[in-house]
């Protein structure tokens, strides 16, 4: 009898009991919707009233072939690719540099930490209003740039819109990633910096040869988290560039999912986009992990 119980509940049944509520929470809010989304993506599905007699036939890969052949979807994946290429490296470099600088300052440390963290905890809607004030046609940035201001202006310029969103998100999320790096920096032995100093290493060399390898695990986490949050980009194209504008130049896959799934009542094609996005993010994260954690 005992081996069976051990098999079911493990060697520490109490641990299983403690973990169970969270496992249940994950099953309900993560596994269930994900499984449902996968199921929906293989059917001709739409949301219906309870009790309504509706036919939802299995359609195989039809939804996938439809979305993969849709130029709007292709464009959205390309756009988010541009976003990630700008956002992820910028996030890693700036967060690490600022965290290192913050780690070494002694005066005004708390003020600086709060300053970096404020955009992260402020609602996107409020921050978008500030950026609209800065980057709109008659905004502060164009006033300062004068004749050097881009034409068309930032938010309606198909070349500038996505890079601007990437910059916005980098700035907004930076506080969180700086905190991750600050925590990781506490684990880098001071002896290593002293040894580097005795060997005559400059501050830059010391940063490259001690700090960067010392926080490698944190870098892996930052890259993966920035990739995941970046791939889920929605609020900024929705609000800052008025619905993925100009002319779809900043539309993201999640924005297209919203249009198709919620506005147009096609959750089947929206789910197919979602599943493709999950698979791509998983693949990118695995590749990142392999590259960043290799010795």
């Amino acid at each position, binding site marked *: 009898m005992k081996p069976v119980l051990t098999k079911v509940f493990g060697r520490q049944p109490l641990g299983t009991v403690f973990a169970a509520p969270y496992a249940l929470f994950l099953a309900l809010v993560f596994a269930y919707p994900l499984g449902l989304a996968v199921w929906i993506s293989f059917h001709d599905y739409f949301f219906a009233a309870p*009790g309504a007699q509706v036919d939802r036939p299995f359609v195989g890969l039809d939804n996938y072939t439809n979305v993969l052949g849709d130029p709007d979807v292709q464009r959205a994946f390309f756009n988010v690719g541009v976003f990630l290429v700008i956002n992820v490296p910028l996030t890693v470099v700036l967060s690490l540099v600022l965290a290192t600088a913050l780690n070494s300052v002694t005066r005004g440390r708390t003020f600086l930490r709060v300053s970096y963290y404020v955009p992260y905890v402020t609602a996107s809607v409020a921050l978008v209003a500030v950026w609209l004030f800065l980057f709109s046609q008659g905004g502060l940035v164009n006033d300062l740039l004068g004749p050097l201001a881009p034409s068309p202006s930032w938010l309606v310029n198909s070349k500038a819109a996505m890079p601007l969103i990437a910059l916005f998100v980098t700035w907004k999320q930076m506080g969180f990633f700086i905190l991750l790096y600050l925590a990781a920096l506490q684990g880098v032995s001071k002896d290593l910096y002293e040894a580097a100093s005795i060997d005559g290493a400059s501050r830059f060399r010391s940063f490259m040869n001690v700090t960067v390898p010392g926080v490698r695990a944190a870098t892996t986490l930052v890259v993966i988290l920035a990739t995941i949050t970046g791939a889920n980009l929605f609020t900024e194209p929705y609000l800052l560039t008025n619905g*993925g504008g100009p002319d779809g130049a900043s539309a993201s896959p999640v924005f297209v999912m919203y249009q198709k799934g919620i506005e147009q009542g096609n959750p089947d094609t929206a789910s197919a986009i979602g599943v493709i996005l999950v698979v791509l993010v998983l693949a990118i994260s695995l590749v990142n992990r392999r590259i960043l954690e290799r010795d």
Partner: protein
Amino acid sequence: MRRTFLTTSVAVLALGVTAACGSSSGSGEARSASGPIKVWLSNNPEEIAWGKAMVKEWNAEHSDQKVTAQEIPAGKTSEEVIGAAITAGNAPCLVFNTSPAAVPQFEKQGGLVPLDGFSGGKQYVEDRSGDQAEQYQSPDGKYYQIPWKQNPVMIFYNKDLFKKAGIDPANPPLKTYDQFLATSKKLVDSGSAPAAIAPAPSSEFFQSWFDFYPLYAAESGGKQTVEDGKATFDDTAGKDVWNFWAQMYKDGYTPKEKYDGDSFADKKAAMAVVGPWAIAVYKGKVNWGAVPVPTKTGMDASEVHTFTDAKNIALYSACKNQKTAWNVLKFATSKDQDNKLLETTGQMPIRKDLATTYASYFSSHPDYRLFADQASRTVEVPNVPNSVEIWQEIRDNFSSAVIFGKTSVDDSIAKAADAADKLAKK
């Protein structure tokens, strides 16, 4: 590791499949049931005032069939909230803000009750709205909405800014496209306003109702974008309208960037595309005048059609006391309540002979007379499957060719019409 991954994946899929296969019970016989009901009102203050007064009147006479009214819960759009409520099975009995464009989708979801099913239902709808009712009939010939009230879209202009630009504010030259362009040039070149007119250049599917569609309704003599299952707008009228707006954007009379506020009230634009709701909104803020939307050759005002910008009432299938809901619907759209709606909101009930039925109102409110006349020549969005998707196709192609000038008008309008043809047949 691999085994754990596989087990987790199977569990995730199994959960989803189990959920998807879950069946729900039927709604039962609610059509003949009476009792308390819930209704949702739009969040417009004037409509809430009318709605609450209407409910109070009903409740005073029907203590056993009490109506509880509330604003539509907050969401990105009313249609998303209503769609979610239908799926969840907790939609109210009546929504006094049902967009005609969303009706095909709600109908497909099984969320609406055909009004024809009630004794004299069809007759009531057609007697009240006359010929205009036909536009609200679904492809199966039934009415899933009652045409309630409309805001015929016209061109509002700021008389002070026109005067400043040296344009006669009493008779502004805005009838033809050429006149409209020349007037816009004067307004912008004189520095009277940064923009002549500023319809939202954003990508939402409904934005075409306030730039392309009113002008297309006028230019085509009252055509809908899809008729008899086929797109109509890839014609001379459609191309003329797209080319007109393309010129407005190209010449900088219409901004490509959305203004974060009310450009007309803030005097950032000298004109606006609005309905009669705007009379109360701009009262005391803007010295305004109104004219019909322009046409290529300057059609006589008495022939100009425009977009309805209507909001209707629908009865939702989650309603347990549908008989009461139907009676409340009739009460709320009675001649007396329509009069109160007109007086409280300035919006036009979709009634035949509106101007003569409420002649005393229009004689004491001359500002609204022009809109009452326009109300008899309005075009609704077509009641076809995939309506929202069709409007999104139109919007995306319009944005590309007209607002941002990336593609040719001829190619984009043909592309949008082709997509509309396919979607309307789906």
